[in-house]
């Protein structure tokens, strides 16, 4: 219960910070200043935005399906929030340590799709319906490379339990860990023990997962569902006030969730970045509950920052390019990783 509440609080605060960061990052990338007026460096801007959203009138279009329209943003946000339950935050800190954590997260993310369709249908608006349809087509297609990339990491850990996967990537592991399958580093740990360095082909799997995750959270360059130039704002066009804030919260929550999943599966989860070097026991000093929280959050926030960087650097894909990229590039790559994982597990580990 305490973990659930603190995650909720964290997601809300993180979103406030992330929206501000997004504006500043975009401004720096495009050589602008970004928000400057509200507070020093505009750091009160998102707070002002939230105040505005809370007091805004809650408009339901008269042609909309009232109940679906009102409940849809809640479903979108709750489905994202439920995903955090299976994320291990520190060696002994996890919402529910289930034996099917990875599978659970994959399933829960797919509920979001129903929320999008509900928004699109409930709004009874051409643009919203197009946005929702595009978003669903995109998420459903990109679930395949994402899922297969995840499986190729899971095959090496031999567990669907997120906490066990994390344990197997650091000095707390009970198994022998080898850097690139050659060098025994069970007692050295650090970044050398992360999954992507245990088996080099997981670097490709990580890249596939990260790209697919961008598409699953509807972020540029995969933001055709909310393409401003053609669909105005996409599926959430009819929403105002607090419900719009919920959709926004879900988008940023999704960014954090997919980053956290990537961190747990490929980048060592709550394990430390620093290896033991001789008598300098950096890995042992920086492993623990507090450090675990610090590492997983800083790693995932770094990935979120990369997502923002990509958004403001790359132009938007066309719909057919998007699907072609998914089916012709990412899916075969993910299958190749899966194949190598099987051989790696049998021959190297």
């Amino acid at each position, binding site marked *: 219960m305490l973990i659930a509440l603190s995650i909720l609080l964290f997601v809300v605060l993180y979103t406030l910070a992330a929206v501000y960061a997004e504006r500043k990052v975009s401004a720096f990338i495009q050589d602008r200043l970004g928000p400057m007026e509200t507070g020093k460096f505009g750091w009160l801007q998102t707070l002002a935005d939230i105040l505005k959203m809370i007091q805004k009138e809650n408009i339901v279009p008269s042609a909309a399906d009232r109940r679906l329209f009102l409940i849809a943003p809640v479903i979108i946000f709750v489905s994202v929030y439920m995903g955090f339950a299976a994320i291990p935050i520190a060696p002994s800190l996890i919402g529910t340590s289930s*034996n099917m954590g990875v599978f659970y997260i994959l399933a829960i993310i797919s*509920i979001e799709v*129903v929320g999008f*369709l509900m928004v699109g249908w409930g709004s009874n608006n051409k643009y919203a319906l197009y946005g929702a*349809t595009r978003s*669903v087509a995109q998420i*459903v297609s990109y679930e395949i490379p994402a899922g297969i990339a995840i499986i190729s990491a899971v095959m090496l850990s031999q567990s669907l339990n997120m906490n066990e996967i994390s344990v197997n990537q650091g000095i707390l592991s009970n198994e022998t860990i080898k850097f690139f399958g050659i060098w025994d580093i069970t007692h050295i740990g650090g970044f050398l023990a992360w999954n992507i360095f245990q088996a080099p082909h997981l670097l490709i799997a990580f890249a596939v997962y990260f790209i697919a995750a961008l598409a699953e959270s509807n972020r540029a360059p995969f933001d055709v569902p909310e393409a401003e130039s053609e669909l105005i704002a996409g599926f959430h066009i009819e929403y105002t006030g607090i419900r719009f804030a919920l959709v926004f919260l879900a988008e940023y929550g999704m960014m954090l969730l997919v980053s956290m999943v990537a961190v747990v599966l490929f980048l060592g989860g709550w394990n430390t970045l620093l290896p033991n070097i001789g008598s300098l026991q950096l890995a042992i000093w920086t492993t623990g509950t507090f450090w675990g929280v610090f590492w997983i959050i800083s790693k995932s926030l770094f990935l979120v920052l990369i997502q923002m960087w990509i958004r403001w650097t790359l132009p938007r894909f066309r719909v057919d390019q998007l699907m072609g990229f998914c089916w012709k590039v990412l899916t075969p790559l993910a299958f190749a990783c899966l194949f190598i994982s099987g051989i790696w597990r049998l021959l190297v580990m």
Partner: protein
Amino acid sequence: MLKTAFYILAVITVLSAMYVVVCKNLARAVFVFFATLFCLAGIYVFAFADFVAITQIMVYVGGIVVLMLFGIMLSNRQLLNFLVDEKNETRFFSLNKTGAFLLSATVFIGLIRMITMANVANLKWLKDAVSSQQYYTGFENSPQIIGVQTMTNYLLPFEAASVYLLAVLIGAAYLARKKKIG
């Protein structure tokens, strides 16, 4: 606490399933069907079938419901309006529905009779399992057990299912192909 959760899930499942049958707005019915399937997944968890529960969410919620919604969205709205427009002379019961009414009543009574006859609390195999301590506690690594079982004892049905699915896939691709004009 657990019992309350179970009853809440059960009541939502039954009520939403009824709403799906009665509701004349097709899109809304599918969204309520989503609630039915989701609560059903919750009930699976109570039966220690957590793997089935998550598969239920993955396949039915993420797949079937979305497919149904796409079907509705891609079809013409006017085509579905006859459901809403159709007015019954009597709201509750009309004579030409007697057959349907009798059939459903028979099935309902049959099911109730089956539950009462089964005498679930005194089943022999249940008692044997409890006395020999061979029961599921919920802490087993069920994906691993399922994986080992599918690859050993149930390999033939598993392979048969995969061949069947491949055939379905090829059939679907064949149906959806570009047709030659002329």
